[in-house]
């Protein structure tokens, strides 16, 4: 295990972090809409949203990635495999984040919503100014957990040929016959990244004023 190999792993870790962050951000945007739809009383909104959430939470990410990777070209969308990987991770995390947010939305005290209405906010304002911020603060710890899940799950995009930390480790291990030091180093890098995310999350949680609404 040389410094050069470790540097290669670190470079690949940048791809892991990049792919994960982009997927979490896209997933979050989709999740807000998805959770609002899932909480709607109209079946045309809540049925598809719940089906989507149930499907992406019920199927292994590996299978989702294979599905999206083969489905996109068939329906005429030819994109680089990195895009397919990000689409897969984003849709998956969107379903999990939507379920978290749904819990958050349901825990927003009804009194606050009524107060907003009495103050003269319209439903749209009530949603974006009262319910979304409070639900986000309530579900922030779950979001940090989900970020860590996605950082770990992003190792699966190695299967569709993306060069990130796991794929790099795999390639180096087979070309150098040093699987133990290389996979152990990759594990260490994942561990450090996840610890940093967890620490930053805890710090941010404190500056958000904890989970109290």
């Amino acid at each position, binding site marked *: 295990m040389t410094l050069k190999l470790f540097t290669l792993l670190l470079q690949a870790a940048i791809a892991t972090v990049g792919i994960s962050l982009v997927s979490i951000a896209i997933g979050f945007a989709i999740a807000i809409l998805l959770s609002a739809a899932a909480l709607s009383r109209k079946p045309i909104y809540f049925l598809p949203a719940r089906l989507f959430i*149930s499907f992406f939470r019920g199927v*292994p990410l590996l*299978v989702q990635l294979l599905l999206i990777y083969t489905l996109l070209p068939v329906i005429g969308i030819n994109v680089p495999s990195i895009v397919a990987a990000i689409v897969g991770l984003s849709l998956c995390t969107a379903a999990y984040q939507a379920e978290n947010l749904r819990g958050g939305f349901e825990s927003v005290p009804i009194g606050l919503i009524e107060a907003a209405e009495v103050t003269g906010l319209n439903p749209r304002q009530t949603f974006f100014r009262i319910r979304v911020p409070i639900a986000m603060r309530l579900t922030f710890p779950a979001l940090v957990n989900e970020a*860590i899940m996605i950082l*770990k*799950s992003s190792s699966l995009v190695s299967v569709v040929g993306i060069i990130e930390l*796991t794929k790099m480790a795999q390639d180096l291990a087979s070309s150098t016959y040093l*699987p133990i030091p290389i996979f152990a180093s990759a*594990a260490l890098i994942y561990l450090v990244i996840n610890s940093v995310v967890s620490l930053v999350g805890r710090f941010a949680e404190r500056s958000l004023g904890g989970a109290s609404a």
Partner: protein
Amino acid sequence: MMFSPQIILEKLPEIGSGLFVTLILWIVGIAGGVAVGFLVATARRFGGRLINLVLGGIVEILRGTPFLIQIFLLYYGGPFVGLMLDPIPCGLIGLTIYSAAYYSEIFRAGYAAVPRGHVEAAECLGLTRLQAIRRIQIPEMALIVLPPSINLAVILLKESAVLSIITVPELTATVSAIGSQQYAFLEAIFLLAVIYWVIVEVTGRLGRLAEQRLSRLRFSKA
């Protein structure tokens, strides 16, 4: 554009054997994980600071790294330290270790979560120590531990698909191989997704049913 029925019927035995391997991996992963996880949580609670620190460190490593990396380390790294494992035993061991780390955290929380006041109240009401354990502590702990345990069981089923990467002949490996042979990869993956989805939904529903029964037990007058 689904699989034609003949292909499914023809390949049913193969799909069945893949499903069988997945279910075995799943059940062993849960059972082994619960057993080892319970031991780890108990040792951490009663075994002193050093044991708590060491086991806690191992659990954090297992929870902070991808399952795929752990499996690669075991499967490709094992032979270098004299641990030659075939894919299936490697998958069983890997899944059990992974599962044990997460179950140990669930039990740790379970130990901490039964309110002391409830045990004291039982004693004040004249229940014997054994009755208090049987009627109060175990049901309450089960109720606390059950929802995250079902959740984890579902996660383990999905993680077991990762074992296809080290050629364990489980559901994902089997069905995607059939798809490649039949030039019907998309249909095969679709079928695969539906099978997992059904198992996960059924498990979730059974879990909720068990929760309801247990919560009735909790508030029963007996």
